[in-house]
């Protein structure tokens, strides 16, 4: 069964460094999402992406964050200058098309900023 994959599974970085989190959505899916979950807390929406552009973003998704779909299969989240409070689990999700509402989540990348 097709699934969303994410790499790396864990990343440790120093404050101020740039990180890129990678996701491969399910093939033929058209809608892509990033969420984060700080340990023990609820899931927070970051951004949605459709037709090669951001369709919605939350207040969390400030200028430090960017997303890209560089090659038609990968979907990346970049954090330009990480802060301690960026430490969280980051989930990518994809959805097939309009009318198909189920989002399929990847296994997540656990980011630790020191």
């Amino acid at each position, binding site marked *: 069964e097709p699934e969303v994959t994410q790499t790396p599974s864990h990343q440790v970085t120093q404050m101020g460094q740039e990180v890129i989190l990678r996701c491969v959505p399910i093939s033929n899916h058209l809608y892509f999402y990033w969420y984060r979950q700080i340990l023990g807390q609820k899931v927070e929406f970051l951004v949605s992406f459709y037709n090669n552009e951001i369709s919605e973003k*939350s207040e969390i998704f400030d200028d430090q964050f960017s997303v890209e779909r560089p090659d038609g299969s990968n979907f990346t989240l970049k954090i330009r200058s990480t802060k301690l409070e960026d430490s969280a689990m980051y989930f990518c999700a994809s959805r097939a098309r309009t009318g198909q509402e189920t989002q399929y989540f990847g296994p997540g990348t656990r980011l630790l900023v020191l």
Partner: protein
Amino acid sequence: ELKVEQNPLFLSMQEGKNYTIYCNYSTTSDRLYWYRQDPGKSLESLFVLLSNGAVKQEGRLMASLDTKARLSTLHITAAVHDLSATYFCAVLFSSGTYKYIFGTGTRLKVLA
């Protein structure tokens, strides 16, 4: 303010018992989702509810939506240990912009 509230936050129940998790939201919504999350794992989509009165069932779980009351319920029938997990509801708000807001989650523990 867009808010999604779940209760209870924690639920410990005996196998074989029934219980309901509640999800209230603050304003008109287009979609309501229920997810399951096992410890240290990702989210698994359980249900998507699209309209008032929608009811969906899968195994021992049944979800319903009352858009007038801005309330969704996740009912557990004859709980089994395998249902132990954290359950999140999430709401898509589309007044002007689209935003997905998750509830705080309900940590369910089913005791054998």
